């Protein structure tokens, strides 16, 4: 089956969670991680990661630093900040609330 597009609004949650699992990643790695961890079900429009990451940089949820990949290419590595962890916790609890409610409604009667 073709991978699904992610639900709108959940991109930042996915990115934050992915970053919380690994200390630092660059954009390509984040995209691969989401695809892989979701079992190839969730496909992100890969470019849209970058505006999202910029937004997180503005808000101070992540920091970025230039480093080198294994293949000796320059890449920008992102890390979660304490503010970012807090945001992750907030979004997670919100997510669980909303989707828990949806799940209750669509439960077989």
């Amino acid at each position, binding site marked *: 089956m073709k991978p699904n597009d992610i639900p709108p609004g959940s991109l930042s949650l996915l990115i934050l969670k992915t970053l919380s699992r690994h200390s630092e990643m*660059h*954009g*390509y790695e984040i995209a691969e991680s989401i695809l892989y961890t979701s079992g190839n079900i969730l496909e992100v*429009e*890969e470019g849209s990661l*970058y*505006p999202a990451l*910029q937004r997180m940089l*503005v*808000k101070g949820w992540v920091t970025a630093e230039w480093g080198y990949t294994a293949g000796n290419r320059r890449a920008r590595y992102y890390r979660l900040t304490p503010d970012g962890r807090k945001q992750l916790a907030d979004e997670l609890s919100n997510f669980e609330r909303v989707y828990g409610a949806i799940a209750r409604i669509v439960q077989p009667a």
Partner: protein
Amino acid sequence: MMQLLRRIQMLFQRSRFNADLEEEMQLHLDLRRQQMMASGLSPESAHRETHRRFGNTTVLRDRSHTAWGWGWLESFAQDTAYGLRSMLRSPGLTLVALLSLALGIGANTAIFSFLDAVVLRSLPVKNPSQLMMLGKGDDAGVTDDYGSTTLYSYPFFKEFREKNTAFSDVATVFSFGDPMYGTLDHRDRMQLFVRDIVSGTFFSTLGAEPAVGRLFTPEDDAVEGKHPVVVISYAFWQSAFAGAPDILNHTIKFADTTFSIIGVASPGFFGIEVGHAPDLWIPMAMMRSLPVHYAGYNDNFFQSNYIFARLKPGVTPAKAEAEANVLYQQITRGFPDAKLNDYNLAHLQKAHVSLTPLTNGRSFLRASFADPLRILMGVTALVLLIACANIANLLLARSTARAREFAVRQALGAQRLRLIRQMLTESLVLALAGGALGVVFALFASRILLRMISGGPDVDLIPLDVSLNWRLLGFSLAATVGTAALFGIVPALRASRVQITESLKDGLGSSHSTTRNPLGKALVITQVAISLLLTVASVLFLRSLINLTRIDTGFPRSSIMLMNIDSTVLGLKGEDPRMIAMFPQIEERASAVPGVQAASFASFIFHQGSWNGSVNVPGVPFNDQVSVRHNVIGNDYFKTMQIPLLAGRAFGPQDNATSHKVAIISESMAHDFFPAGVNPIGRHFFHSRTPSPDGGMEVVGIVKDVKFGHLDEPRQYIDYVPNPQHPWSYGTLVVRYTGDFNTVSAGVQNAIHSVNRNLPIGQVTSLDHVIERSITNQRLVAQLSLFFGLLAVFLSAIGIYGLMSYIVSRRTNEIGIRMALGAARSRVRWMVMREIVRLVVTGIALGTALSLAAGSLVRSLLYGISPNEPASLAFAIVAMLIVALFAGYLPASRASKVSPMEALRYE
């Protein structure tokens, strides 16, 4: 907070930001492509698939940018840059637009700075709104009238201060006084000082603080003659002492008394009189020690001062006024030497002290210039409106040319708001450039205006602070933004309301709406109307001014020189025989100077103040409502001024200090004060209400009426007395001469010094100049309204020319067809002119209606002419027609020269 800092940091690192993002996204694309190729796709497919999965890099870059929140700033910068570029692309039009804006905004700012300084600004003292003045402050001088509520005596002030409960402090200041001569330290030469004589409570009531040393206290004013101290102004400290730090060791000598300087007032402090900046303040206790030797300190009825006070917090003006009136009656009646006869009591009973707020201080300028300044403010606002209309038309024309650009942008998804924002930004750029230029222009204009208000090139500038300040800049900014909105908003709305398919079509499409252009026409009609109004106004003011200058003053004005001597420095009393003898001596020596036909002293020549009072003619009922002006003169006065003697004789050596008192009266005084059919010559009259024991003055001559104080005054009653009988240590020598002014003036000054070397001579001027200066505000209004009227007409002409050129260019196609079908050139010309005539006539009709309606606003400023006077209106209409038709003729003749082939060519 941190977020803001991060965002600001990004602003400074923009180019690196772009490069970083570029590199980042490129890495992602490369890695994805490698992965695709590794899983078996061909390079082309891998490339295609990668980009498909990545998304539109341009949009993504844009969204990344927007995330930082500076989008609005960047589009603003973009719009500004675009605005500047398009301004530079048509330099001629931009120059005209900028100049008209600069003149409009600059003129408004300059006039507002004066309006602010003279009328609106509060005194630079503590809490000026608490300050009140007793009476209306509309008079200056000395009076002993009972019931005068403007001028008060010093003893009255002392009692009032003691007895009142409504005011936290009370002060008093001498109401008049010319600059007086004195000596700084031990210098050789005397110089003039502008002074104020004040009570010890003056500075504390105003809440002033010293810059150096201390200011007066009530103890400095306690005993007459015992406090030789002065406070000097900050500006005087800088100019006369170069800001010397040991200023408190310096002295100033007036007459026989040396005053020590005890303090310097703070910068900008000038007291309560706007337009008057004294060099120093002297305590009232010292008024007799000054050269003029005022004797009023202990005189209960030497009413020479203004009284002002600070309200206690919580006390209403009404309550204070009530108490002031009670105290007024109490104190005046309580004076031991009060003459409480019926006459005085009647006046006292009628007297009512009103409290006038002193928030804006008192000002002699305000009376003359408040109305002219307001009118000029209206005029400059109208000129600015005309300039805005021009620019609006310009922008409308340009926006139509850009219709295709906007159509394309909207088709590509641009929002209407974005386009409007861009156009408004362009307008703002133009307006700000014009406004900045305008502020520069205003700085120059202010200087010129101050020179004009002060009365001409040979007078000292009035000390008015019209320098640039925040209020002024704020006003300019508001005017600028207002004009940008005014001329920018309609073109912006117009331009963005584009029908996309219509505009994208090839060719001109439907030229319908653009050639009709009702808005542009409405703007031109408004311009013509306003210009007509301003032209009528300038013609009216000019004619009024000419009427004034043509007034017969009663004496020939040219070739008369005036100079002031200050005889008070001699230290002699006016009655001293040496003083009395000195004046005829000077007159004699001066008359002997080559070029001088006659010379004489007088206390008042023209527009120099007055000494007036009522007269009592025995046998005629006494009328105290009519004032007679008294003039103390030398024997050759009428000869010098060439005032005709109608009967009797002039004064001569036989009229001296011991001979019986004589007077000469003016023609209308003879007619109105003495019984009909009786020859006034030989009759006696009195300068006081009750006949004096010496029998009064005998009338020995009658002279023709002359103007005394103002050109447009009603007929005045004047009587003349010889100096030996009313010693007046007066100062103005009037000289009738032929030849070169400077040579004769030098000769006369030498003659004066040959009599007494120490006499200071000043204010050498001609009578013509004095008369000119007396109508300064009328001249100001006339000159400025002429300037602005011409400017308005010029701008309207440009507007007409611009609009017609534009309309012709849009109709080139139509004109070409007509000419190809056989229309003559003259027909085409007439076709265009018809448009213009319609516009101009409508504008003129509207303008005429406006002029008639607004006439009553300026009635008070006109002399000898009515605002609705038809000749001025007719002249203005004709002038406007000529200019407008000429401006429109050029595009019309250009239209007729269009070659049909060119016009019909594919656009």
